[in-house]
């Protein structure tokens, strides 16, 4: 997670920032992630986590600093967006369409060859083939989240950005989601995971970071971090501003 790794990085930023008018949402974020890395990003509401993800996804233009995602300089364009899968706590699905139609639409928009077959493979990966023709509005929150992940990964992105994907899931849903994300990471996908659930986040992470008031206030390799210790560290940073 330093400058020397940036050359091999799938994601790298240097002093990345974003202002909305006079308000600084993200300030001076520098990080580097290689293939298969997963950064768990923690922080209170309004810390700038979502804004950072949206910049990395190529949907929001940085106002300062530089960054590269999958070899393309931010804010990138269509080429950068094609390399990224973006999953948020909102399903980003159309309730009136079926699970298959939602995924197939995304596959077509990403120019995937044989979108129908790709949608079926994505549904199989998420073990929801039997619900393929069910309108999304009739699916449970957990099922919708699986469809959402299938939608976001139908084009086999090199980078997956996740914004509080565990929100609203029950324990079994969270466990299933965690397993699917671990499989993605094992397949070499680079991930940035924004979550309030420290244990789930650290279980997946190769790196962990805490964000507060737009800045990264702590950043480290995370595979060896004990969740209980990290929760204490997190509280210290967020509550007392250490």
């Amino acid at each position: 997670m330093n400058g020397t790794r940036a050359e091999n990085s799938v994601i790298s930023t240097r002093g990345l920032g974003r202002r909305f008018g006079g308000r600084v949402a993200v300030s001076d974020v520098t990080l580097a992630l290689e293939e298969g890395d997963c950064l768990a990003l923690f922080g209170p509401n309004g810390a700038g986590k979502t804004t950072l993800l949206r910049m990395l996804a190529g949907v929001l233009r940085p106002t300062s600093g530089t960054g590269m995602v999958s070899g393309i300089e931010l804010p990138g364009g269509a080429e950068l967006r094609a390399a990224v899968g973006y999953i948020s706590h909102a399903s980003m699905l159309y309730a009136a369409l079926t699970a298959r139609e939602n995924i197939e639409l995304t596959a077509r928009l990403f120019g995937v060859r044989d979108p129908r077959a790709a949608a079926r493979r994505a549904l199989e990966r998420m073990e929801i083939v039997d619900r393929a023709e069910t309108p999304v509005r009739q699916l449970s929150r957990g099922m919708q989240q699986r469809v959402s992940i299938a939608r976001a990964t139908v084009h086999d992105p090199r980078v997956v950005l996740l914004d509080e994907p565990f929100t609203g899931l029950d324990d079994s849903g969270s466990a299933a989601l965690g397993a699917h994300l671990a499989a993605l990471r094992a397949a070499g996908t680079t991930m940035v995971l924004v979550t309030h659930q420290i244990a789930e986040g650290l279980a997946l992470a190769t790196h962990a970071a805490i964000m507060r008031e737009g800045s990264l206030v702590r950043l480290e390799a995370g595979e060896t971090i004990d969740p209980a210790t990290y929760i204490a560290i997190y509280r210290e940073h967020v509550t007392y501003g250490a």
Partner: protein
Amino acid sequence: MAPSTLSAALLIARKDLAIEFRTRTAFFSAAVFALLGIVIFFFAWDPTAVSSIDLAPGVLWGIFTFSGLLGLQRSFGLEQADRAIDALLGAPISRESIYLGKAIANLVFVAAVQIIAIPAVQLFYGVPLLEHAAVIALIALMSAIGLVAVGTLFSAMAVNTKLAEMLLPVLSLPFFVPIVIPAAQATARLLAGRPASESVGWLKLLLAFDIVFVVACMLAFPYTIEE
């Protein structure tokens, strides 16, 4: 390879129309609104004071703008639910294709409402609209293009505000005036049996506004969705 602007626009339009076909909420609302408007104007009308040929064009194109707003309101509203717009913005397609796709779907929606409203105006006001079906269809198409060009842009702008339902008409209606005036004037001349050459000038004006609105709105659209 990501789809071209037109291909992506057609995918988005087809998706919007599929959703509307399944839910039918906006279409029925707009169609019922149009019919009720025509009926209310009919009962408020004093045929001894104003002839039907003078009144009908104003009623037709006035109702057309207001009922069209119902569809335009829905256009980006359905993207806001569950933040589906983020999935579109994250796709490797041009911003213009999102605008164009939405506009095509809105055009079909508005045209479908017109298919109901035009015969209804003929039925209530006894004006020979369907006898001039080809020209009326041309006027309807040209007005619909101008209306959806402006309305789609303002729908995208208004949807992120707390006052979206109020803001869309307030923003859009002033821009609908240059569309309604030539449409109503051309229709009035047609119904009055005037020579077609008298309507050509109004149709040229309508075409000019269509071109300006489509080009300007498509260029402005990417900035409206930029945060």
